[in-house]
């Protein structure tokens, strides 16, 4: 199975020069995105087939490190992520068939787009440290090029800079991790690494390094600094790929190293992952609630979901460390399912944001509003995405969240007290972030799509093109399907958990009425299908009955608003005013949020002003000082550029004398 996959990758890579050759014509857009759509679909099918029971297949090409070659392999894990990556890729390509036409400088996007998808696939397929890292860093490189596609804006360049530096930091961490695993004589092939059983301290170090490496790419707090800058800066279909897919590739890296290559770590390391995962989830969504730029909101909510996934992974680690394989499988399934779900609805939401951006030219929610009237279909799918990401039944977001909670509820069986106490706390954090996520997306959807238009641009918005809508509807449909028949997806994940945890959840599709049962019917179960049907039936019944038996008449009138009808849209709640209560409750604590209101003296006609100041604690305490240090050091050292020749000679002289002294003393 791996060989055709590689052909697909070759095709994608070949697409880049073709795109360059075709130049900035509309032709180029169609060819590039059309071809990527086809290839990604093919790759997705390959992934699916190998997930559903194709044997593991591997191949070695005489590329890369000469004495090593480039190893590629498809096993259950990589097959699953192959599906995720290419599903996202296909959706993005379909979307871009329409959206990409509006690109002002396609020459800066088209060549890198297929290469970027190819790179992500390569990461998933590669089976030795070198190819893995090449693909990993190549992924960063291509996405960097896409982030600065609109290079005229200084902000984007800055975003690209921060992004590439952070990405390289992550790569460095992974490099060191593999350096430890491979040893001095360099057995970089994964089989060799798997065979070697490293010492406990080494396992710990590698785990931390892998967490830094993968976490920095996935956007784990506090390594997330680049993400809200870079993801919104790229064209929307690329933002969707970065948020929906690339972060998942990062998670793949973590799983591959920690669960597959590394031996079982001591249990306390899982606490690190758990704690950081929980904090990431809560922080991410709080950040999201403080933003007014809709793409930024989405980027921060990605951080939240990554946090949820890592919390589940930490749980799986804990169970695995204590040899409880079935719960480990449950936690792992929850994580992987959330990976899949998030890739669906996050891409969907970014597509929606892109459609809005194109229709209005605005990313600031305070300048949007009332779009549901002008772009009803986009509004509908965006709503679906919002419900899904807010973990509300009957859509898919809830299922993975529910599984995570089920896994958390198994924590009492853990023997170590640290975990016994930590897991419920993490559970509280997850619950908090779930509730806040709902708030965040009520805000995101409500402010931008509902109410009345807050700007002329929003008033003149128009529905987006067919391709984009098709892509969005496909994803929305998938969100619903994954929500109502989750059993199918859970069963598909069984081989993965078998490979990684040596166990898997009980077979789901056999259960009556297609409900899902993590451990036992008596313990817990959930049936998305029935919930959906019941809601539909009862809602429909109510509607039918009322319209039949009672009145179905309807009059339009100005809004009542407690008797203060206000003609101006400015009197509506804005994004920032909507966030105000939450900012009061959490912001003062986390972001040192301050509100300065200045009232004009009685009689003066000056408007009253309210200024809100929100600080990013992590940026202030981590990133700013680092940048400061580099600036300081380079300033200090830069003096050496401005010495006289005599001084330079003195340097040489000093070096010589020093070495001679060393020699004299050493001998």
């Amino acid at each position: 199975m791996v060989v055709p996959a590689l052909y697909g990758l070759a095709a994608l890579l070949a697409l880049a020069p073709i795109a360059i050759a075709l130049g900035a014509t509309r032709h180029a857009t169609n060819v590039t995105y059309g071809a990527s759509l086809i290839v990604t679909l093919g790759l997705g099918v390959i992934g699916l087939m190998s997930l559903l029971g194709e044997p593991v297949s591997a191949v070695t090409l005489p590329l890369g490190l000469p004495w090593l070659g480039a190893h590629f392999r498809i096993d259950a894990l990589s097959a699953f992520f192959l599906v995720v990556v290419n599903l996202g890729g296909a959706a993005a390509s379909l979307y871009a068939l329409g959206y990409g036409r509006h690109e002002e400088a396609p020459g800066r996007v088209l060549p890198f787009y297929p290469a970027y998808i190819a790179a992500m696939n390569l990461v998933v397929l590669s089976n030795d440290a070198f190819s893995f890292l090449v693909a990993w860093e190549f992924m960063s490189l291509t996405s960097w090029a896409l982030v600065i596609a609109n290079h005229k804006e200084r902000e984007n360049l800055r975003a690209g800079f921060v992004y590439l530096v952070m990405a390289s930091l992550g790569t460095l961490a992974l490099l060191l991790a593999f350096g430890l695993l491979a040893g001095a004589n360099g057995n970089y092939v994964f089989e060799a690494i798997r065979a070697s059983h490293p010492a406990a301290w080494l396992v710990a170090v590698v785990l931390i390094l892998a967490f830094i490496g993968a976490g920095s790419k996935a956007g784990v707090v506090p390594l997330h600094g680049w993400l809200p800058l870079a993801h919104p800066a790229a064209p929307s279909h690329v933002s969707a790929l970065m948020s929906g897919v690339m972060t998942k590739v990062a998670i793949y890296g973590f799983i591959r190293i920690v669960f597959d290559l590394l031996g079982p770590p001591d249990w306390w390391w899982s606490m690190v992952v758990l704690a950081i995962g929980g904090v990431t989830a809560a922080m991410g969504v709080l950040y999201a609630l403080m933003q007014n730029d809709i793409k930024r909101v989405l980027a921060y909510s990605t951080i939240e979901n990554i946090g949820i996934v890592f919390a589940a992974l930490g749980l799986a680690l804990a169970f695995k460390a204590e040899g409880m394989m079935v719960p480990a499988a449950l936690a792992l399934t929850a994580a992987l399912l959330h990976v899949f779900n998030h890739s669906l609805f996050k891409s969907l939401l970014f597509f929606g944001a892109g459609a809005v951006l194109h229709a209005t030219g605005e990313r600031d929610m305070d300048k949007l509003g009332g779009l549901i009237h002008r772009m009803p279909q986009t509004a509908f799918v965006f709503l679906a995405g919002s419900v899904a990401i807010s973990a509300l039944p009957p859509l898919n977001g809830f299922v993975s969240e529910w599984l995570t909670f089920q896994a958390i509820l198994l924590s009492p069986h853990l023997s170590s007290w640290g975990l016994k106490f930590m897991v419920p706390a993490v559970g509280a954090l997850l619950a908090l972030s779930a509730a806040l996520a709902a708030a965040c997306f009520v805000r995101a959807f409500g402010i931008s799509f509902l109410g009345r238009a807050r700007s002329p641009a929003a008033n003149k918005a128009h529905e987006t093109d067919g391709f984009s809508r098709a892509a969005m509807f496909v994803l929305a449909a998938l969100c619903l399907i994954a929500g109502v028949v989750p059993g199918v997806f859970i069963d598909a994940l069984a081989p993965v958990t078998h490979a990684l945890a040596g166990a898997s959840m009980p077979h789901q599709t056999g259960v009556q009425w297609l409900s899902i049962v993590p451990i036992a019917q008596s313990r817990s179960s959930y049936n998305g299908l029935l919930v959906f049907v019941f809601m539909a039936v009862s809602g429909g019944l109510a509607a039918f009955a009322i319209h039949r038996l009672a009145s179905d008449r309807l009059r339009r009138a100005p809004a009542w608003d407690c008797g203060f009808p206000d003609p101006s849209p400015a009197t509506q709640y804005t994004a920032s005013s909507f966030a105000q209560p939450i900012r009061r409750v959490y912001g003062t604590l986390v972001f040192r949020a301050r509100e300065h209101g200045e009232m004009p003296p009685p009689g003066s006609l000056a408007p009253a002003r309210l200024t809100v100041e929100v600080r990013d604690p992590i940026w202030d305490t981590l990133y700013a000082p680092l940048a400061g240090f580099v600036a300081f050091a380079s300033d200090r050292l830069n003096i050496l550029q401005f010495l006289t020749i005599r001084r330079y000679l003195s340097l040489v002289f000093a070096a010589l004398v020093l070495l001679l002294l060393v020699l004299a003393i050493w001998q």
Partner: protein
Amino acid sequence: MAIVREFAFQGAQMLLVLLLSPLLTGFVRKMKARLQRRQGPPLLQPYRDLLRLLRKDVVLAESASWLFRVIPYVVFAATWVAASLVPTFRSGLYFSWTADLIAIIALLGSARFFQALAGLDVGTSFGGIGASREVMIASLAEPAMLMIMFTLALVAGSTQLSTMAAYMLSSEVGLRVSLGLALIAIIMVAIAENARIPVDNPATHLELTMVHEAMVLEYSGRHLALIDLAAELKLLLYLSLIACLFLPWGLVTAEYGPQALAVAVGAYVAKLVGLSFLLAVFETAIAKMRVFRVPEFMGAALMLGLLATLLLFVSGSL
């Protein structure tokens, strides 16, 4: 044959909650009135209101979208499904495993989600106030509820309401600190979720203090009827939740006889009466608090929930 009977029970429960909920609200109102030395509206007043509203025209704001008209049905449906999945007089109903406690809470979450959207849809200032405050309160109430659920689930080793109720009935559950804390917490959450005093005042239209009412301000006619009915269902749901988790006595499980059923229904009604009486007393005794005191109130609930969970380990009962 058995299947049919099971379906019948499920249907019966759905109808029961639907029909009982306005009466419950009416009863609470009556109680409060009496406690305040007022005559108060008749018990059946809520039914009359609903019917009246259903027959009236809907007056829809110009800026309202299709979503605004769909939402009442969604909210009603979600709440009704949730309410009909909570054991009232009989546990282990045929579809009880459709959604466990987590899912029920989440269903209420969806209802709230859409209601908040409705608040924003017309684009008025009051809708905004309501929605933003609602989500703020919910952001604390939901985790608190989940923490309570954790405690109970860890005690009962299940999130299946029927199983939990059965466990609570069984002898092995002793008197526990955690359960006490959980009870207090769940009451606090129930008060907040149902927009009761001191968190919110269902009767008020004093603009700056209202939360739930502000969200539904623009609704009228059948839409308003559905929203109100959903609210009443929610109250019933929480009361019967408390009833089935903390006072499960009289609940019939698998095997039953007619008299057992009668007893069960009677017990259920009795519980409701008792709880709603307590609620009325509580509401009369206490004053509504400022909106930004609410977070502290809910935070306390959350802390209680977390504490309850952690205490479980200390008490070493696992």
